[in-house]
């Protein structure tokens, strides 16, 4: 896997929506980064020790630059949001399995993202476009309001359909509403977002008889599969744990929706 802890350098940071920050970092982790994988970012102040798992939004593999787009949720991310250009930051990566690009081959693909689950969809859309194996790629993203962060970036690589909770842009409602409203069809779904949305995608895939890959979240400690903190319930016994638990940081974060009990 070639995981390592390394010191990255902040190249750019900006708040792109209320409490949502967009940061580019210089790190050679970019070279091996896969869409759907995440980085563990380590804050330093106020006694915070554990890393913040943040999904990779975009990776410029040639230039060795990684982009993360994250929401300030607590002390750690608040500290992160205050970092200026050239500030050094400890990151552990690349973690997790990432989305299976091959599964898109010859298929009509939905990339659905909700809120802070939208960022990983960018690198995914980019890679699918580059490989060009998918028959079609539609990005369906759900926002709280009119602050449509990353929408323009996503439009570079695929057709984007928007839903907003307050109806201030796109379809009023969630990604499911946007799919219905726009009469969209797919053979494969790749999703990241809040649990209700993931459950909806899982249900949708079951009804349509298609496969859905969903990226799960859980409080993590080690990020490398040692502590067993971030598990999810699995339908079958997990091959590693030999119980009905899979490690989100290692077997995941991306799972076949039908394999997990959410």
């Amino acid at each position, binding site marked *: 896997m070639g995981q390592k*802890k390394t010191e990255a350098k902040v190249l750019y940071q900006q708040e792109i929506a209320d409490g949502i920050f967009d940061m580019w970092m210089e790190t050679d982790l970019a070279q091996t980064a896969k869409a759907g994988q995440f980085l563990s970012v380590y804050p330093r102040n*106020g*006694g915070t*020790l554990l890393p913040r798992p943040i999904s990779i939004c975009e990776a410029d593999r040639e230039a060795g630059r990684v982009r993360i787009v994250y929401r300030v949720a607590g002390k750690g991310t608040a500290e992160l949001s205050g970092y200026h250009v050239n500030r050094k930051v400890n990151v552990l990566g690349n973690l997790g399995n990432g989305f299976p690009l091959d599964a898109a081959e010859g298929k009509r693909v939905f990339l659905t993202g909700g809120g802070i689950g939208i960022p990983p969809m960018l690198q995914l859309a980019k890679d699918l476009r580059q490989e060009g194996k998918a028959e079609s790629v539609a990005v369906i993203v759900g926002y709280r309001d009119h602050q449509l962060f990353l929408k323009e970036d996503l439009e570079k690589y695929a057709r984007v359909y928007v839903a907003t909770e307050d109806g201030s842009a796109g379809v009023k409602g969630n990604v499911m509403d946007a799919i219905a409203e726009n009469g969209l069809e797919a053979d494969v779904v790749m999703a990241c977002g809040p649990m209700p949305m993931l459950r909806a995608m899982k249900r949708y895939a079951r009804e349509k008889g298609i496969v859905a890959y969903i990226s799960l979240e859980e409080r993590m*400690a080690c990020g490398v*599969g040692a*502590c*067993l903190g971030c598990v999810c319930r699995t339908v079958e016994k997990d091959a590693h744990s030999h119980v009905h*638990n899979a490690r989100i940081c290692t077997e995941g974060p991306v799972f076949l929706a039908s394999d997990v009990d959410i």
Partner: protein
Amino acid sequence: MNTKVKIAGVEFKNPVMTASGTFGSGMEYSEFVDLNRLGAVVTKGVANVPWEGNPTPRIAETYGGMLNAIGLQNPGIDVFVERDMPFLEKYDTRIIVNVCGKTVEDYLEVVERLGDTKADMLEINVSCPNVKEGAIAFGQKADSLYGITSAVKKKARQPVIMKLSPNVTDIAEMARAAEAAGADALSMINTLTGMKIDVHKRKFVLANRTGGLSGPAVKPVAVRMVYQAAQAVKIPIIGMGGIANAEDALEFLLAGATAVAVGAMNFVNPYTTVEVVDGIEEYMEKYGIEDIRSLIGSVE
């Protein structure tokens, strides 16, 4: 310069080990550190059968530490012996297997199964605060600790380390009970029982409500308990609790520990164990200490 230490006749190339439950069975961290450089790998607790562990969230961050309530999820002794032992045997490091159970019989079954493996020592976990039955119940009363220790000793083919709970009034009394029952060594501290509440959701952060506190926050309590236990018993002690660097490790050695284990800090810096090994050597170099054993319990 000698960094070797001996515990119950088992020699360790250096006194730096991993704390049970923070290092899996070594596989995950072998990506980051050369296991051959460690005195020993202490495995995640293993039971007679697979354990599902607790529901999530199992992790909460606290100031200078963390709470965990994994609940000893483990694949069971069969998988452990078939998969994890062979992996560890490839390395030139000692293997200490942490044993957990809900009943005395559970413990004994695992202890017997391990008898004909290459495990160098057994660490009996009688202090996990995150499982209802067994575990900590055995570790908080001197007489029950005495009972399980002597029962295990009767069956064990390897030297036995009893891992003590810090959630007690008198750690010295517990240490003496384990020694009296024939324990070959002690390890301490397991985690301190703690709790975190999300004041915005008005809910417990951990599904299990309480969890075990570890990390630098607990180090002063751990050092104190190792010191008190070392004053009370003759058997060697493996000290742990918030060790983040060589200086922390040396504190435990000076307090009376014969070896130390790195726990939660593996999660913060996966290279901590080897950095501690290197740092201890630099310290011995700097102060001209020939034999690491001269440091043990040498605080004044």
